[in-house]
């Protein structure tokens, strides 16, 4: 059926994987590769087989059908392969597809295939595309290595070096360079590059980039205008939708934010993340039907995906409870505890189960669960603030005042500077008919933290660093999520190491504290400064 015609050294000695559910296409593509001189060719008929091959072998070229029927599609296999590091730097991934979709063309840059071929596939196209992609991969292998190693400065330097000489990958290099500059926080440098590109031509990714710069600098009006212009000219451009939704949300225009998210879900119907975003926005607005539908889809689409996460289950349970569907809420909570072997998730599910009973008027079960929880949770305050708040509410509504107080105290002490959250705690007590009780508890708990923190700061100022560290470490054990205490502990540790030289234990403590703060609040303004001081010390 085939003969080797014009085999070039480029194709000889490489490992190939073909993934297609249709026998005719598999053998056709295999014959083409053999004709080009390829010998080591594996074929898979679905995602699971493909992943099994990727786990076993390293491939130079993967030809992967997009629509593989049930299960993952070609892009999702690529995403998982990259996520699990099954795909080498030099692997060329080509998607073979019947039609171009927004996901394929405008999806997340880090999960894009190296090229896509639209059917019908013929020998001439296959050959020229493979030659082109392999040459490009070879030219950009250093850049890609730097990108994957998150070595930002090197990435930019390599891009600049390649851009200095005339070559064919200009647009791709500029995209990599600008996105790296943005990650480094060099917004003005990125803006300059976008401006240079746009001076010559209306390129959607460059205009979207300009919008991102505006967004990150807090210029929301400007950002909104740019993203809308991109969408007007390119109605299927996904990235501009994602950012426009964020912009509207930031401006407090949640109605428009939801409209944009709904549109992006239409454009990208298999995206787990976009469904989740739509669900969360609808939930925030109280549009319970839309939220429930979106979360159900998030769970279904996420089943075999790297984006499978408990939040969609827990949110769906809340939405169902609020929407008068307690049976579904309880079922979802049962599922989440089975699907995720995680203590925190199970505790959260228990709290929500109690909430479902309270809302549906099932007082017996609510009371039973409240008691069970009180004994399990006890003084465990290392839980997300939202879960602690829900638990407090459950305890209050089931008349378990002791458990409610201890949970509320832990919550306040861990977040003594978060005014919005403290306000919510107060409201819970008001709603439970205990006016003033909440305020009292908040003031007292807050005071305790402030005092011990002030004592530590005073000790540090007096130069008694060891004592200050000791005090802050004790406070941190009691209040594992208090940002102020962790930042101060990191700062005093840095101070002590500056005076007495580096110290592995203090270094570890400071690192742990800052990592935890960054996790709780990625936008904390003190964390960056403390981190810089620590990095300078580690130098």
């Amino acid at each position, binding site marked *: 059926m085939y003969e080797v015609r014009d085999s070039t050294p480029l194709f000889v000695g490489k490992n190939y994987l073909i993934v297609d559910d249709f026998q*005719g296409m598999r053998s*056709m593509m295999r014959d083409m590769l053999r004709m080009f001189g390829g010998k080591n060719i594996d074929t898979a008929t679905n995602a699971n087989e493909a992943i099994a091959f990727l786990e076993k072998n390293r491939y130079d070229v993967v030809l992967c059908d997009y629509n593989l029927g049930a299960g993952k599609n070609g892009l999702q296999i690529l995403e998982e392969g990259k996520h699990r590091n099954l795909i080498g730097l030099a692997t060329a991934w080509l998607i073979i597809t*019947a039609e*171009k979709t927004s996901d394929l063309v405008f999806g997340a840059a880090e999960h894009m295939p190296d090229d896509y071929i639209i059917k019908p596939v013929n*020998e001439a196209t296959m050959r020229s595309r493979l030659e082109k992609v392999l040459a490009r991969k070879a030219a950009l292998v250093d850049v890609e290595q730097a990108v994957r190693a998150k070595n930002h400065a090197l990435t930019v330097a390599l891009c600049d070096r390649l851009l200095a000489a005339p070559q064919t990958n200009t647009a791709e290099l500029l995209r990599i360079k600008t996105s790296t500059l943005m990650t480094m926080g060099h917004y003005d440098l990125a803006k300059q590059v976008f401006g240079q590109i746009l001076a010559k031509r*209306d390129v959607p990714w460059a205009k979207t980039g300009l919008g991102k710069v505006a967004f990150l600098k807090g210029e929301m009006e400007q950002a909104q205008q740019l993203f809308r212009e991109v969408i007007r000219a390119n109605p*299927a451009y996904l990235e501009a939708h994602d950012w426009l939704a964020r912009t509207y949300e930031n401006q407090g225009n949640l109605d428009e934010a939801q409209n944009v998210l709904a549109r992006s879900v239409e454009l990208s119907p298999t995206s787990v993340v976009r469904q989740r975003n739509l669900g969360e926005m609808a939930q925030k607005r109280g549009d319970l039907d839309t939220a429930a539908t979106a979360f159900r889809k998030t769970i279904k689409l996420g089943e075999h995906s790297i984006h499978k996460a408990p939040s969609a289950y827990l949110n769906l349970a809340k939405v169902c409870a609020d929407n008068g569907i307690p049976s579904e809420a309880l079922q979802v909570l049962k599922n989440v505890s089975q699907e995720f072997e995680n203590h925190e998730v199970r505790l959260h599910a228990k709290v929500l189960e109690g909430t479902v009973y309270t809302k549906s008027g099932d007082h017996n079960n609510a009371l039973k669960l409240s008691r069970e929880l009180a004994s399990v949770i006890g003084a465990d305050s290392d839980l997300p603030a939202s879960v602690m708040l829900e638990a407090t509410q459950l305890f209050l509504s089931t008349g378990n005042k002791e458990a409610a107080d201890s949970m509320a105290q832990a919550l306040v002490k861990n977040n003594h500077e978060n005014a919005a959250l403290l306000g919510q705690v107060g409201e819970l007590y008001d709603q439970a008919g205990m006016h003033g009780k909440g305020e009292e508890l908040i003031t007292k708990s807050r005071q305790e933290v402030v005092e011990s923190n002030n004592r530590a700061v005073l000790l540090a100022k007096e130069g008694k660093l060891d004592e200050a560290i000791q005090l802050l470490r004790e406070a941190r054990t009691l209040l594992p999520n208090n940002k102020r205490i962790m930042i101060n502990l990191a700062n005093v540790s840095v101070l002590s190491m500056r005076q007495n030289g580096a110290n592995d234990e203090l270094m570890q403590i400071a690192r742990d504290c800052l990592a935890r703060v960054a996790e709780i609040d990625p936008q904390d303004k003190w964390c960056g400064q403390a981190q810089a001081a620590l990095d300078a010390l580690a130098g």
Partner: protein
Amino acid sequence: MENKETVPDISAFLASAIHDMKNSISVLISFLDDNITRLDPEAQRAAAPMLYEVQRVNDNLLQMLAIYKVGNQFYPFDLAENSIAEFVHEVAAQNQSLLDYLGITLDIDCDEGLHWYFDYELVAGVVAHALNNASHYTKDRLRLAVKEEDGELVMRVEDNGSGYPDNVLEAGDAVNKGVNFASGSTGLGLYFSAMVAQLHQNRGKTGTMQLENGGALGGGCFILRLP
């Protein structure tokens, strides 16, 4: 029991049907190509129309799907910088075997170093369709020329046949003005080409499509201009 007549939602079947049809067309083209290659020139020329017809089915499918998606704002219009040399050689290679079997020579005249911004799939669809069409009406020669003229990219597909009849020339003029006189496959092809031209815009300028007679080979001449 009430017997209601229901109208099925065709869009639910569209994606999977097209997925299947494209697979079938891929295999069909590959099969025809493999087998026609083995024939002697006389038999090749006799069998070539099969390849032409399959290509036409594919063109129509591509055009309908693109028009449907653009109309519903679902088409991912991908304005990217493309190498003209790579584009021309890839499109020509796709049509090469058909032209060989029919004994038609294809002259390529393009500025190899040129790069231009356009949606690869759509423009390749327009040019491949023009070539396939011209292969049917030419005597024995085609010309594909791609040049920059006055800040626009100009792509010409020319043949040495007897030229477009008047009604097709008129339809070509009309479709550019937003009216579609032609019907059937001619109408679809013209509408698609004009739509692709109009989707390409840059700094206030819009692409155009034009049909005329004459050109370098004296026959029909299809012209696509992109800003």
